[in-house]
């Protein structure tokens, strides 16, 4: 089923910065996202984490306000303001009670156009971020995901850790931060999306003032561009060794595709049947429903301006982790060799078409979709085309795309668990040699 909704009131500010805001007066709230079209991929070597650090520091002091003043004003307004850094974008995301929107937008504009990079705050932030890096080592699921990217994209921009590396963070200088700011923060590298109880004029004023405030950042003006990552030359097994684990975290997968890859919608359906479609997917059925091996088992694509990853994850008990891993390898190979069945195809098609509207049924979801469309250079409305595109697909097209896409011998397999238990089981049950299993202490930065 295809849903129709009110169209976005697309606003083009006087400069070239795209602005998309959808008015929604159901609740007295305003949500705004100012998006920088680059993220951790633009961190220079030796400065890993600088983009995220810069975004955090910008909210800690402007030419007229200290961090404390900013914090007090934000809290007084009942506002939330956070910086979210991803591989290829940084989102300054704010929400506020509608009655305070004018003050709020003015403060957000000031944070973006007039940061003061206070030295004392920079010192404090370094300690906080190093603490976050250390704290994340205690979270196995996040650690497995991070290490998976580092292993699959080793040497490529996508492998850069968003928070950075401890030493790089500690060594960042004010000059490096100022240079990074003037290089990336300019009108052609930013856009705005949002929704809520605000008028077109208010958002236009905000956009105009933002672009006017960034007009000096033109000397080093840069836009991001990265090469496509290459497939691994062979399957890579990495254990992130952590003592006393009763459960392991597994992430496995390969280099993926872009949204505009001609195989995208075909693989969307195949992934739905394999592990993206909830309880009826093959992974959930085989791993959780039939065997109780893991609370969850799912697969998904990650996207970017270049192909990122197709990956799946599960978290079985240590005792049967290798058995579960082997089962997933067999399932991936079978998917490549035999594709999905007609029944799976019909089911996934019906389910995906019927549920497609849920990806754009609220103003906030439509706003998030526009972020992806603009950042990845997709046509407006791309994210809403899913149902229409899936309708015309045939089973043979889907299975041909799967056969072409899947590369089981070029996957990265990352396991957070206890190596002394896992290595013998892997050599015995998977038939791989011990020298082909890389083991790193969980505290080591890759």
């Amino acid at each position, binding site marked *: 089923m295809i849903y129709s909704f009110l169209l976005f009131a697309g606003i083009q500010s006087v400069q070239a910065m795209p602005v998309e805001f959808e008015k929604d007066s159901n609740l007295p709230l305003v949500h705004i996202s100012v998006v920088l079209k680059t993220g951790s991929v633009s961190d220079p070597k030796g400065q890993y984490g600088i983009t995220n650090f810069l975004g955090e520091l910008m909210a800690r002091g402007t030419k007229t306000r200290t961090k404390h003043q900013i914090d007090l004003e934000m*809290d007084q307004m*009942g506002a*939330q303001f956070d910086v979210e850094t991803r591989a290829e974008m940084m989102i300054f995301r704010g929400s*506020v009670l509608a009655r305070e929107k004018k003050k709020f937008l003015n403060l957000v504009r000031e944070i973006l156009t007039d940061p003061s990079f206070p030295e004392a705050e920079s010192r*404090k932030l370094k300690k906080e971020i190093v*603490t976050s890096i250390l704290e994340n080592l205690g979270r196995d699921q996040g650690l497995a995901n991070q290490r998976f990217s580092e292993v699959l994209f080793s040497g490529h921009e996508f492998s850069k850790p968003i928070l950075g590396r401890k030493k790089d963070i500690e060594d960042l200088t004010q000059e490096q931060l100022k240079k990074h700011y003037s290089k990336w923060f300019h009108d052609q590298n930013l856009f705005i999306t949002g929704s809520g109880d605000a008028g077109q004029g208010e958002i236009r004023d905000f956009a105009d003032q933002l672009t006017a405030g960034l007009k000096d950042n033109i000397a080093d003006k840069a836009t991001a561009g990265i090469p496509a990552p290459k497939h691994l030359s062979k399957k890579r097994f990495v254990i992130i060794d952590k003592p006393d*684990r009763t459960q392991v975290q597994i992430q496995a997968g390969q280099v993926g595709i872009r949204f505009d890859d001609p195989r995208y919608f075909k693989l969307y359906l195949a992934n739905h049947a394999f592990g993206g479609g909830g*309880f009826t997917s093959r992974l959930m059925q085989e791993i959780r429903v039939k065997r109780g091996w893991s609370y969850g088992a799912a697969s998904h694509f990650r996207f970017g301006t270049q192909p990122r990853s197709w990956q799946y994850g599960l978290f*079985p008990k240590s005792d049967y982790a290798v058995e579960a891993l082997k089962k997933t390898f067999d399932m991936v190979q079978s998917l490549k060799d035999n594709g999905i069945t007609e029944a799976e195809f019909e089911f996934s098609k019906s389910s995906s078409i019927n549920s*497609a509207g849920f990806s754009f049924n609220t103003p906030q979801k439509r706003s998030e979709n526009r972020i992806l469309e603009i950042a990845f250079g997709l046509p407006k409305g791309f994210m809403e085309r899913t149902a229409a595109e899936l309708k015309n697909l045939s089973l043979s097209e889907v299975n041909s795309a799967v056969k072409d896409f899947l590369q089981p011998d070029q996957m990265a397999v990352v396991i957070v668990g206890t190596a002394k238990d896992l290595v013998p089981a892997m050599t015995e049950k998977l038939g791989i040699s011990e020298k082909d299993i890389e083991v790193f202490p969980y505290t080591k930065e890759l």
Partner: protein
Amino acid sequence: MKLHRILLTSVFTTAVAVASSCATAGKVEPLAGEYKVHRFSLSNGLKLLIVKNSDSPTFAYQTWFNVGSRNEVPGKTGLAHLFEHMMFKETKNLKPDEFDRTLEKVGAEGMNAFTSRDYTAYVQELPVADGKNLDLIAKMESDRMVNLLVNEKALKTETEVVQNERRLRNENSPDGTMYQEIFGVAFTKHPYRWPVIGYEADLASMTAKDAMDFYKSHYAPNRAVIVIVGDVNPSEAFDTVKKYYGSIPAQPDHDPKIEVEPEQKEVRRKTLKLNIQVEKLMMGFHTPEMTHADAPALDVLRAVLATGKSSRLQRSLVDMGLCGSTASFNMNDADPSLLMIMANMQKGRRAAEAEAVILKELKKLSTTPVGDDELSRAKNQLTYEFYSGLDSASELANFIGQSEIVFGNFSKGMQYYDLISKVTADDLMRVAKNYLKPEGRTVLMGVSK
């Protein structure tokens, strides 16, 4: 495909047969912003609350049961949550997995369930599909309210799934381990002392009979609230719900007696050795139930302490370089529970340092009135929290369902936010003094192995 359709139309006769002749319809109550709630009830005690919102041709359908881990008994901990998993298995009318399969096929989104200390909820969103899906979900939810089957084999497999969930959320998570432990230390009598997910040994010994006994005792229309938010016509939705649930009989309550937790008169401590690189602190203070008159003031106090970057603990712990992050939560439970304060230390700093700072801040709050600006900041943040918690159909349904269970009526959930706006600086001092007593605290410290 055809077979499924035949099954679905022929097997629901038990639930469909007799619509209740006695039902209460159509009271309209304000919610927030543009939203209004249509309240209905059936003679078997089932409550139905509907918010019409036609912005999208979809609707959220949630079923809330007034049962959680507080209704369990020692030796059977985790049964409420394990049973929640079993609700997705088979019924007299649906084969194993047919519930999921049927809903996924019509495009259901966010199919899930969750169990807390006080309630269990089953949630999903569906496309309207010309009203067909409301009929479908009412038919299927009413079926599993009364016709569930539990066999030993399915229970054993699902118990292993839950053991894996427990390993994920508790055993292999430093924060989860500490969260489980703090309730185990702070409570000695009340069922809040055991984790919602249950203890490993209790789960291992659970049988199909335990599950069916639990079902018969706790799953009945008089313990349920249905919330529908979305593009539905309230009176038509009421007719649909009445058609499918009207003949399900109410059941007498079989709740075990819940012991009252005695006052904690001395500090309780526990240190856990964990796979962590920075120390962690978790403190708990006993607070009254959410319906208590002091609950709104305790929420404002929590906001003054740790909500927002200008909050007291953010400044004294994070900005001063002692911690990487800090947070505070009220558990918002139906019975007296805990106000929690958490801190993740910076590298090289000790959890005991944060504890000392927190105690100092609490002392200040109990002796010196909070200024007007600070008080209004805290209230504004709670107002924002309230509205942002209503920003989608499923969140609206969540608020209504939870408020109906915990407060007995969602409008009292709304009044709670009115009461927050009336909290004074003196109220804050009083509740800080009464509830955040240093001698009544429970302290968990996580240190590196």
